[in-house]
């Protein structure tokens, strides 16, 4: 019996976030060859975590990448940070999508942080596409993270 969509979603999320911890260089294997990824722009973060600007702003810049090769280079290059990622998932919503509704759109919300950093609130959207040769295995075709500021950030003097 095939897994339900909900079971696929929960298993995917566990695998995705845990692979960051255990083997970030293999994370790109979860992406389709033409996948698009919008993720934390680690290059724009200060190398010194104690930099005040890094903490004061409660959102992080993102960068957009296309293709499994570029995604692999990205996760390998930022291995240290990716490896240290810690996540509290608060919600997940999902729908089926694609021509035959065999793909899955899912949206998570939560907070993430790294050792010694404050939390960052985020919303992350994925599209999972089943492999042609095995409908029980899914590739990530799209992955967009967006950080959500607290409303206090928008208060002006």
């Amino acid at each position, binding site marked *: 019996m095939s897994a339900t969509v909900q079971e696929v979603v929960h*298993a995917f999320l566990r695998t995705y976030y845990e692979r960051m911890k255990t083997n970030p260089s293999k994370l790109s294997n979860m992406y389709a060859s033409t996948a698009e990824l919008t993720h934390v722009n680690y290059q724009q973060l200060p190398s010194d975590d104690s930099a005040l600007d890094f903490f004061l702003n409660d959102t992080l810049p993102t960068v957009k990448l296309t293709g499994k090769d570029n995604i692999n280079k990205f996760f390998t290059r930022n291995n240290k940070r990716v490896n240290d990622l810690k996540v*509290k998932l608060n*919600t997940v919503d999902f729908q089926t999508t694609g021509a035959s509704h065999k793909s899955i759109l899912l949206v998570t919300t939560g907070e993430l*942080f790294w050792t010694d950093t*404050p939390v960052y609130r985020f919303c992350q959207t994925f599209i999972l596409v089943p492999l042609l040769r095995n409908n029980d295995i899914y590739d990530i075709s799209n992955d967009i993270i967006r950080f959500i500021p607290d409303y206090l950030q928008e208060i002006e*003097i």
Partner: protein
Amino acid sequence: MKKDFPVFINTDADEFVKARAKRHELRLKMLSSKEKLIV
């Protein structure tokens, strides 16, 4: 994966609470530095 949220990945509630406390302190610091709130 358990289906009850929140779910902690690569962390736990204790570590999360400390990270959120850091954010809370920064928010309070920012609030106190504002002369007037326009919301």
